[in-house]
C-alpha cells in the first residue's frame, strides 16, 4: 500500500480547512473506495483526513416532505430508514442491491457519489488510462469491455458509472449540498455527474476540499410506486450489467407521471429523458414501453464486447415499467 498519513477531524470547518490547505490530502469516510484506490495505486499518495466524526450523518424529513440525507449517512441506514422505504422504495432498493451488508455499514452516501469506476484498466495502475493519466489513451476501447458503457461514452473514456444509489437519486432529481471556505452550495444531481467528453478525469464539479454535507431528495408522491431493477450475472454482490430506477403513475390507462434512470450502461447515472418523453401521456402498454426504451437507446454505441447491453437495457426498462404497472401504478 502507498504510504499515507492520517488525521481525524471533528468539525466541518477544520475538515475543510485541513483538506483545502494540502493538495495531496483527501477526505476519508467509510474508506471502501478510498483505501482500495491506495492499495492498488490507482490514486497518488495522500494525507487522509478522517471525517467520520463530523456531525453530518443525519436522515431528516423537511417540512415540505423532502428528505435530507447527511453526507456521512451510511448506505444501510439510509436504505432501512422507514421514510426512505415508504416514500422512495427505489432508493432503498438501489442501496440494498449494492455491495454487501458489511460494505453498506461502512460506506457513506457522500462517498457513494464519489466512488471510482470499476474499469479494470483504471484500476491497474500500470495500464494506459485517460481517466487516471489524462492524455495517455483508453485501454478499454480495444480491450476487455463487457462491463463498459453504451451511453454517454466518448473516444476518450467508456467507463460505466458504478453507483446504484446515484441512479435512483438522479431519477428523483436530488440536490447535492456541499460546503467549502466560501460557504454552502447546492447542485442538481444531474449536473453533478459529468460526461467523460475529452476530460474523463473530471467526474464532478467539486473542487479539492469541497465537502459533501447532504443529499436532498425532494418530495415526489409518485415515488411511492417505484422500484430499482438490477440485472447482473449473479444474484448478489456485483455491479449492474443494466439497471433501471423507475417511478410510475398510471391514470386511466395513461402514464401520468414517470421518472426513469438507468445504471450499468452509461458513463454517468443516466436520466432517461427521451424515454420519459415518450411515456408521458401515452397509454401504459408494452408497446409504449418498448418504444420508450428504443428511443432512449437509439444513440447507444456498442463496444467490442458489450453490444448485448443495448438490448438488455431496453428490456430492463420495459420490465421495470411493466412491473410497476402491474403493481398498481394505476390510479
Amino acid at each position: 500500500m502507498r504510504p499515507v498519513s492520517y488525521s481525524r477531524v471533528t468539525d466541518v470547518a477544520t475538515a475543510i480547512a485541513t483538506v483545502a490547505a494540502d493538495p495531496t490530502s483527501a477526505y476519508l469516510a467509510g474508506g471502501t473506495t478510498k483505501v482500495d484506490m491506495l492499495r492498488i495505486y490507482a490514486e497518488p499518495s495522500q494525507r487522509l483526513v478522517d471525517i467520520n466524526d463530523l456531525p453530518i450523518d443525519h436522515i431528516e424529513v423537511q417540512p415540505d416532505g423532502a428528505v435530507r440525507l447527511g453526507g456521512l449517512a451510511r448506505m444501510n441506514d439510509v436504505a432501512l430508514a422507514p421514510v426512505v422505504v415508504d416514500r422512495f422504495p427505489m432508493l432503498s432498493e438501489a442501496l440494498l442491491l449494492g455491495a454487501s451488508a458489511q460494505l453498506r455499514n461502512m460506506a457513506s452516501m457522500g462517498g457513494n457519489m464519489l466512488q471510482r469506476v470499476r474499469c479494470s484498466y483504471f484500476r491497474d495502475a500500470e495500464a494506459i488510462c485517460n481517466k487516471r493519466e489524462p492524455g495517455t489513451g483508453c485501454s478499454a476501447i480495444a480491450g476487455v469491455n463487457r462491463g463498459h458503457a453504451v451511453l454517454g461514452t466518448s473516444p476518450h473514456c467508456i467507463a460505466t458509472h458504478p453507483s446504484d444509489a446515484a441512479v435512483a437519486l438522479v431519477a428523483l432529481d436530488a440536490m447535492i449540498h456541499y460546503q467549502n471556505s466560501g460557504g454552502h452550495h447546492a447542485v442538481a444531481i444531474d449536473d453533478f455527474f459529468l460526461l467523460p467528453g475529452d476530460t474523463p478525469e473530471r467526474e464532478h464539479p467539486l473542487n479539492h476540499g469541497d465537502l459533501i454535507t447532504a443529499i436532498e431528495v425532494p418530495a415526489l408522491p409518485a415515488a411511492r410506486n417505484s422500484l430499482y431493477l438490477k440485472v447482473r450475472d449473479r444474484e448478489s454482490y456485483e455491479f449492474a450489467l443494466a439497471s433501471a430506477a423507475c417511478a410510475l403513475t398510471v391514470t386511466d390507462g395513461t402514464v401520468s407521471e414517470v421518472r426513469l434512470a438507468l445504471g450499468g450502461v452509461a458513463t454517468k447515472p443516466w436520466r432517461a429523458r427521451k424515454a420519459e418523453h415518450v411515456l408521458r401521456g401515452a397509454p401504459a402498454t408494452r408497446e409504449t414501453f418498448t418504444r420508450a426504451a428504443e428511443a432512449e437507446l437509439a444513440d447507444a454505441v456498442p463496444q467490442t464486447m458489450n453490444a448485448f447491453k443495448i438490448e438488455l437495457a431496453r428490456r430492463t426498462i420495459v420490465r421495470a415499467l411493466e412491473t410497476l404497472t402491474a403493481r398498481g401504478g394505476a390510479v
Partner: protein
Amino acid sequence: MSTAIGRPLDRVDGPAKVTGAGRYSAEIALPGLAHAVLVTSRVPSGRVELLDTYDAERAEGVLAVLHHLNLPKGGSVPPLLPSLFGGPASGQTFFPMQDEVIHYAGQHLAMVVAETLDQAEHAARLVRVTYQETASITTVEQGRDRAYEPEKIFAGFMPGRTTRGDAAAALDRAQVTVENTYHCAANHHNPIECSATTAVWEGDRLTLYDGTQGPNATLHTVAELLNVMPSHIRVVTNHVGGSFGCKAMIWDHPALAALAARAVHRPVRLALSREQMFSSVGHREEQEQRLTLGADRDGRLTAIRHHKLSPTSHFDDWAEPSLGVASQMYACPNYEGVYHLIKANTMTPTFTRCPGEASGMFVMETAMDELAEKLDLDPLELRLRNYAENEPTTGHPWSSKGLRDCYRRGAELARWSERDPRPGTVRDGNWLLGWGMASSAYPVTPPGGPQRARARIFADGSAVVQSSFADFGTGSATAMTQVAADGLGLPLERVRVQYGDSDLPNTAAAVGSAGAGMVSAAVHIAATALRDQLIAQAVADERSPLHGADPRQVVVGDGRMALRDRPGTGETYAELLQRSFMADAEALGTWNPPGMETRAASMTFGAQFAQVAVDPELGLCRVRQLIGVFDPGRVLNRKTAHSQLMGGMLWGMSHALLEGTIMGPDGRWANASLGEYLVPVNADAPDVLIETIETTDTVVNPLGVKGVGEVGMVGTAAAIANAIWHATGRRHHKLPITVEDLL
C-alpha cells in the same frame, strides 16, 4: 463393529479455524520475519531489457531486490510429474528469474524483500522494468493455425490419441449423428487462501510452512530446485484455506521464499496476491472440443469422435484429460479421441477441480441430451441403453458400479418421469422452468508408492496417529480420526490425528480425489497393526485375562480387548501397558496400492439432475435445485463427504453459469480479481439434495473408499445446460452460459 466411521462428526479443526486460532502459512509469526513481494511481467512475450531497482533498493525497509542477475542459482527443475506419484511435482518445467526471457504475462521477474509487507509491496511498485516485447499467442483463436498433435499429454502420462474400432467408418454408417463444437473458458481455482510460504533456514536445514495439498511434494520439489538434501527439509502445513488443484503441484514460490530467506539471512514469508494467483499457480486452460456421436435408431452408440484443442505453455505438453471419463462412460465399440495443442504464452495449465472430467463430460452429456431429443427418447433411457457393464476401453470389469441405482434414485428424487419432456412448456411468472440430467463419473487413481502412517498408544490408553497428509479444507483430518479410532478400538475423544508435516510418515499429495482412500488405507493399517500387536502381547502375557486366547477371537471396543463370545473376559490397553511398565507402544502401517496392472477399472459414479429458472427476456438463469446421487464406496464421514459433494455441485453450477477467465488482447488475464472473476455467492446457491448409494468396493483400497472430492462437479454443468434447453428450447455449446447467451 465399526462405530466411528461414517458418522457425521464435526470437523476436528473447526474450532481452530473459526476462532482464528489456527495459523495458515502466511500467518506464522516468527522473530525477525521479513516479507517478500513478487514483481511480475506486464507483457506475455519478449525480454527484460532493463530492470531498474535503484529506487526500490533505497526504499524504506528494503533488505534485498532479487532477480535474474543476482539470484543464486540452485539445482535443476524436476520433470512435471503429478504429485500423486509422491516425488518432485513441479507445476511446470520452468523456473523463473534465471534469464531475461519472458514466456507469459505474470511471470515472476523479481522479488523485493523488506521488513514489512507494506514496505515490500511499495518497493515492488518502484522496480521499473523495460521490456522488449515480441508477438504472442495466448488464445485458441490466435493459435489455431499452429496446432499440433502431441504424442503424450498430461506430463507424458496419457497418449495424445486413443482409438478403438473404426470411428470414421462407423460414423459414416450411423443412422443418427450429433455433431457440435464447444467452447469452455479458462478457469482459475480461486481458493480463499492465496498461496503462501514462510521459509526459515537454520544452518543448512530448511523449514517451509507451505499451503499445499502435499507437504512431501513441496519437500521433494524444493529439494531438487535448490539442490538441498531432502533429509534437510521439513515442510509444515497447518491449515490450508482451500486449493481446488492450485496447490496440488508445486510452483516456484516455495523455492523462491527459501532463496529469499537465504539471501537476507532471516525467515521470509512470500504470499501471492489475489492478482498473482491468476498467473502463478496454473489454471484450467481455455478449450475447444468437437464431439461427434453416432447411434442407431434405438439409441445405441456406434461411434464417438472427440477432439480437443487447447493452449499450453512453451515448456510442457499439458492438456487436462477432457476426453478421459467421457470415453469411459458408455459402451461404444468405435472411438477416436485426439488432443491438439497450441504452444502459447501462458504458464503450464494444471489440475483444476475435475481436471478434464468437468469440461469433457459437459460436452459428452449435452451431446447425449441432443441425441435423446433427436431420437425422441427420454435422456435417462438413452443413458441406460448405453450403460457400460465393463470399462469400454480395456473391457476390464468395474471394481464396483452403482450407477443404475444412482439413476433410479435420482430420477425418483427429481420426479423425472412427471416432467413434460417438451421444452419451453412450464412457466412461473417471468421465469421458464426446466429440468435436465447428466451422468457423472470420476476415476479412482492409486498413488504412486506406499502410503504410511504411525499409530502410537500411551499407557493411559490414549493414542496419536501420525501421517504427513495435509487437510486443505476437505475434512480429511476428521475422517482419519474416525478411521484411527475404529482401527484401534478406541473412542474418538481418545484419539488425536497429527498431520500436515513432512517429518511424519510419508503420504503422497492428496489429489485426484484420492486422499481419503489412500490416507485411510495407511491409517487403518497402522491402527489395526497396533491393535493386533497389543492383542498378541496380551494373549502371550500370563498375567492377562486373555492369556492363551486365540487372537482372532479377541475384539476391541472402548479401549478394552475382550473375547468375542465372552465379553466379560478381557482387559484394557492401559492395564496391559501399565502392568508391563510400557510408556507407549507403536506400529507403522504401510499400504502398497494396487499397481496400474490391476485388472479392474474404478470410478465413483453419479447421476445428477438440475432444475433451472430462465428469464429469457433479461437473460437470467437461476438454478432452483440440484440433485446428485453418487456411489462413492465407503463414506468415512457423512457430513464432510456430503459437504465435498455439495461443494463440487456448486462448483459445477459456477462452471456452468459464472466462471471464466478472460484473456485480454494484451495477453494478460483481464479479470484477475474476485470482483470480476465471478464465483457464486450464497444467494446463488440453490437447494442441493445429495444421496449416496451403498457400494462395496474390495479392490480400490482396504476400506473401499472411492472418493467424493470432485465427482459432484462432473455432471452439474451439463445437467444445467440441459435444463436450460428444457426451459427454453435453446442449446448452449459454451461455458459459462451468461446473460448475453440467454437474451
